[in-house]
């Protein structure tokens, strides 16, 4: 959130004072009979400066550029008071009329942070100050009236009649001022060349305006100044220079506003991250979104207790790199990552917040994804364990039936049959009939129990393998079934059970519902997968979600990492396809 500016009434006060100051200045020029073009070209740049300064203050209260522009605005009108009726005022205006150049010349290299980053800029601004100070002192103490331009005031402090010194200072100032402005232009151009895209987006308007200003100033001082230039030619030069100063102030505002465009790119990036963006490539994505190819995202490694690079090697954060800044991203008080980026990005706190939010969002997504994957793996493992435990229990029940009830019934059947053979010839036919019926009923009971045991768990699957178990299934089918089995190695018991019950369920459905004439069962192993198919030419229209049978098979298949597909168009037959890994992972 943007911090609320302190002294909220200050802008209104400055606007009121600035307008009053401009009005008073304009009155002085009106008194001198200046034309309307002159008046407009004189008053508007100052108002543009104060407006630009206050706009920057409203957007970036911490940015020092705003007061440099406001100061330039107030200094702008000082020279107009050379036409005052008060000699002291005229002297002050004459001596201090050009100081707006210092504030603007300071603001341009200090943009966008408001601080002079480079030593050369500090030297150049100091040179500007020295030149202006020397000229002011010269105009107060060394000036001899009338000067070459025919204006100014009497030197009332020193009895000087020779204007050589004053002229020398004025000449030095003119060439020095133009050279310093050109130096600042070169410095800004150099910064532009070294900046990344967001930095250039901000600096470009200021660079353009500063170029125009430097050219105009150079022309004004190197050619126009001290030359015998007619007023008709000289005034337009002044107009160009003045509007160039206004353009500089305006360019600084435009530069800051252009950075906001970069924020929308980050917003797009955040939206993109919400869909599909590998967290590991977030740094690259941010770099692309911001146009800062040198942007580096260094995640924090809790294990290494350090920021790490893309190969998980601990790295030290760079310090004291020109035009580079480090944004540390934290979450719940702990470090998450560090972003090394163009210092220009710091000029837009909203942009930085968006970047931080994007990184946090990605890290959260990554952690959430990892947690979900872990939970999914746990659920899958749990489901496999449940199915395996169920299978083990089914095998135990089947074995209990086999070893217990079935064996007892078999023994009883044999005993009855033995008794039947040992009956004397004179045994009652009714006794023989009852005994025979008992043997018959017992045989039926054994068959039913055997079918029940097979449904719980087919013993043949455990003892003879999947291929034999499927052959057994097919052999019991009342329909003719073509069989194609090619299983090189026996799969694990869970995989074999899943395949067996899939075939069993599919064949049962064919017999019950399909009205099929042709049925094929295929079980083939290749490339580490077992593909089981049951195909019929029946009525079709089967639904995997219609009953519990195929759905249960699908669940069982999924529990071992397999898939079940059902193709069953109406009147188009049915194909049940099951793919299973040969071994559990």
């Amino acid at each position, binding site marked *: 959130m943007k911090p609320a500016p302190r002294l909220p009434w200050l802008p209104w006060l400055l606007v009121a004072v600035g307008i009053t100051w401009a009005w008073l200045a304009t009155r002085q020029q009106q008194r001198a009979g200046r034309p309307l073009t002159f008046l407009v070209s004189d008053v508007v740049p100052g108002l543009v400066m104060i407006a630009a300064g206050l706009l920057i203050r409203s957007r970036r209260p911490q940015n020092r550029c705003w007061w440099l522009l406001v100061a330039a605005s107030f200094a702008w009108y000082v020279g107009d008071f050379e036409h005052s009726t008060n000699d002291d005022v005229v002297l002050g205006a004459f001596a201090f009329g050009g100081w707006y150049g210092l504030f603007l010349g300071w603001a341009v290299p200090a943009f966008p942070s408001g601080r002079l980053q480079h030593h050369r800029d500090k030297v150049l601004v100091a040179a500007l100050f020295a030149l202006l100070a020397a000229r002011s002192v010269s105009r107060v103490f060394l000036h001899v009236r009338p000067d070459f331009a025919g204006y100014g005031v009497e030197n009332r402090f020193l009895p000087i009649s020779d204007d050589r010194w004053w002229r020398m200072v004025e000449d030095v100032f003119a060439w020095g001022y133009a050279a310093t402005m050109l130096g600042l232009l070169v410095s800004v151009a150099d910064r532009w060349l070294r900046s990344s895209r967001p930095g250039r987006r901000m600096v470009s308007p200021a660079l353009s305006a500063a170029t125009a200003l430097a050219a105009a100033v150079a022309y004004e001082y190197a050619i126009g100044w001290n030359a015998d230039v007619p007023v008709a030619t000289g005034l337009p030069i002044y107009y160009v220079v003045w509007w160039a100063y206004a353009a500089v102030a305006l360019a600084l505002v435009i530069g800051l506003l252009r950075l906001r465009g970069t924020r929308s790119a980050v917003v797009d990036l955040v939206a993109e991250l919400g869909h599909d963006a590998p967290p590991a490539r977030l740094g690259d994505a941010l770099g692309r979104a911001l146009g800062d190819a040198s942007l580096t995202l260094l995640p924090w490694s809790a294990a290494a207790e350090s920021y790490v690079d893309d190969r998980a090697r601990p790295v030290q954060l760079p310090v004291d790199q020109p035009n580079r800044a480090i944004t540390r991203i934290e979450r719940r008080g702990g470090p998450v990552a560090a972003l090394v980026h163009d210092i220009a990005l710091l000029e837009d706190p909203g942009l930085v917040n968006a970047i931080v939010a994007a990184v946090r969002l990605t890290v959260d997504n990554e952690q959430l994804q990892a947690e979900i994957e872990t939970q999914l793996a746990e659920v899958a493992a749990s489901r496999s364990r449940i199915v395996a435990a169920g299978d083990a229990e089914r095998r135990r029940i089947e074995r209990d039936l086999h070893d217990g009830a079935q064996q007892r019934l078999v023994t009883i059947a*044999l005993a009855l049959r033995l008794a039947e053979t040992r009956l004397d010839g004179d045994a009652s036919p009714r006794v023989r009939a009852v005994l025979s019926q008992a043997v018959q009923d017992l045989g039926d009971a054994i068959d039913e129990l055997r079918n029940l045991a097979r449904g719980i768990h087919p013993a043949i699957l455990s003892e003879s393998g999947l291929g034999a178990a499927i052959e057994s299934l097919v*052999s019991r089918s009342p329909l003719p079934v073509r069989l194609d089995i090619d299983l090189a190695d026996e799969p694990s018991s869970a995989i074999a059970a899943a395949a067996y019950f899939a075939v069993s369920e599919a064949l049962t459905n064919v017999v019950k519902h399909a009205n099929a004439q042709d049925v094929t069962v295929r079980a083939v192993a290749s490339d580490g997968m077992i593909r089981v198919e049951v195909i019929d030419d029946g009525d079709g229209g089967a639904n995997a979600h219609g009953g519990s049978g195929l759905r249960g098979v699908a669940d069982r298949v999924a529990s071992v990492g397999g898939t079940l597909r059902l193709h069953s168009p109406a009147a188009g037959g049915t194909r049940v396809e099951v793919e299973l890994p040969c071994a559990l992972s």
Partner: protein
Amino acid sequence: MGRTVLIVDDQSEFRLLARELLEADGFVVVGEAGDVQGALGAARDLRPDVVLLDVRLPDGSGVDAARTMQTGPAPPVVVLTSTADYTDEARQCGATGFIPKGLLSGPVLRAVLEAA
């Protein structure tokens, strides 16, 4: 003399009843075994005409034991028995036939042997 039979089953009651049923029908039961190892040893030592072999044994599969018996110089006739259906398995392992345990009797065994 009837054909000699080796009965292999882990249930002693089944072996006893099977012996009586078969002997009542003229077969000569020359031995019994309760597991695969015993079955292989008895088949080698007693050289029975027929081995009545349960599929599910404590130390292994009767199907595998049948295969092993078929590798000897004078392989016996093997008939598998079980409460489950092992008809196809019997065919594949070289056994002569398969008899559900509940249906075992001398005539049934004879029918299976004659059908082979």
